[in-house]
């Protein structure tokens, strides 16, 4: 395997690892939930708000979920997953402590 394709393979694996990182799942689910619930909050009727103890819960919890979702994605991007398997195979084949 040439160095170039090895690098490409590494990059491909890293993209996959990022995509399948648990933080990506939580982050994207919360972004979708956040947007949908925020919209429900913006369009909530006065009667609904009054029933929920005069709080526009959907709006607040929607925004909170959106922030949480973005937070998880940001965490994943700033601390990307490492590739332990590729690491041990390519760099140090016998160093399985």
């Amino acid at each position, binding site marked *: 395997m040439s160095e170039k394709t090895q690098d490409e393979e590494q990059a491909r694996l890293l993209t996959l690892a990022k*995509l*399948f990182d*648990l933080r990506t*799942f*939580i982050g994207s*689910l*919360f972004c*979708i*939930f956040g947007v*949908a*619930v*925020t*919209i*429900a*909050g913006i369009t*909530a009727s006065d009667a*609904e*708000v009054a*029933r*929920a*103890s005069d*709080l526009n*819960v*959907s709006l*607040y*919890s*929607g925004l*909170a*979920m959106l922030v*949480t979702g973005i937070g998880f994605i940001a965490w994943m991007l700033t601390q990307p997953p490492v590739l*332990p398997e590729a690491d041990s195979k390519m760099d140090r084949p016998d160093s399985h402590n």
Partner: protein
Amino acid sequence: MELLAVKDLTLDLSPVDIFLLIVYFVFVIGIGFALKRAVKSSSDFFLSGRSLPAWITGLAFISANLGAVEILGQSASAAEYGASVVHYFWVGAIPAMVFLGIVMMPFYYGSKVRSVPEYLRLRYDRKAHLINALTFTLASLLIAGVNLFALAVVIEALLGIPQAWAIVLSASFVLSYILLGGLSSAIYNEVLQFFVILAGLIPLVVIAVKEVGGLSELFATLGAREGPTFNSAWTGTEPGGANVFGDFFGIIVGLGFCLSFGYWTTNFAEVQRAMAAKSTNAARMTPIIGAYPKLFIPLITILPGMAAVVLIPTLGETGADGVEYNNAIPALMDQYLPAGALGVAVTGLVAAFMAGMAANVSSFNAVFTHDLWEEYVRPGRSDHYYLLVGRLATVAGVVIGIGTAYIAANFQNISNYFQVLFTFFNVPLFVTFIVGMFWKRASPNSGFWGILVGTIAAVSTYVLYLQDVISFRSDLHESFWGGIIGFTFGAVTIVVVSLAGKPKPVEELRGLVHGMELRDMDEGEQPLYRRPVPMGMGALALSVVLYLIMSTL
């Protein structure tokens, strides 16, 4: 567990709520498919290849025990008995989780066993191993069925989908994602579910507390209405007092030590999550990281249960408008949550049920494959073969779970008694572990007898209580003392049998007994937040602080 509502609780779901539910189900299956490529060996399937970071296994650790049976059950107990239910968390779960992380995990993880029963086989003998493997697989299937049935009842009550459909539908979701991604899939979904349940219940709790006029107002109202043992955890726990949880000795030693240590440290559905961690340190940190959110779970289960006593006037009443205690949280959702927030809460409950069932199925298939099939039926086959057996066991487990769900539906009392029985089984099991880990002299033979005699003693106590030969304040009070009695009989039996028999050769105890750990336990190099001992002590200190804060309310 009688969840059937007298009052009609069918929720008015708007399109956005249904959209949220569908998105969640797509994610659940998506995770299964995404993780499918990572499952190449039986170790990947049963133990996630021992590769997960501690924050994931830690959240999965508590999430596996945050099924809807627990959420609805704890809010129901809080509505019925009041603040004392926090003992299950602050005296019960927290110390046990810290103990598991600091003291026991090095033996589980360090000895590289693949399951809790496997430790028993190495430390004692095949008799002890077989009795644990069999009862654990039976209990998992039963509990999976109970979870499934509870899920179906709630789905029927809230969404109007017929029970039979709900059972088959949710079982097939659980089946498909475990089949695809194995334990990783179950763990990922548990962590996802954990955040969704928080997002669903926190708004509900905020509204409920605001409606009753704040925390101190709630406790004052409940104290005036229901009496002082209802709004304070320790009032009436002196001998002869009126607290239904019984006396403080029973609470601290029976619940806090015997029952909780028994449940949290020997239940493979829990320990398996820690075994999936990527290093000894991550495995030890798993229950300790879990302990911190666990400290605050009462805020989303017990608190709404207590608030419901004030906010739902017909709670606990029978009759046309009566609302079952078990439906305290669904009734609050029905009463207060608007479109959007309601969808998140419903999704959270459904997710919790599925996660509860998945935890049982994913630990069942591991014990069945390694501890029953590989050990006693077809030893020495290829890894590929056992991976296949694991997948087939998953299918069988879910199908049997559906069967037990129907049994649970028709014989609710029987399944309750079985659950009590399995609870008693955990305590002598814990004695066997703890003595085996700390006493080199404990003989191979003694483990089996300790488990057997301890279980018989605990069950006998229960039977004598049912027959009115001995009296306790309540079933709870009885179970704490049953735990103490089971522990004592189990311990004495192990000592007597060991002293009469031959000890295990010292070289066979390597990695299994205190003082002979295989791995270096020095944690000095790690930053503070990754060190099990100080973090564990911090969790214990916090539970004392929370008791103090509650006593000022």
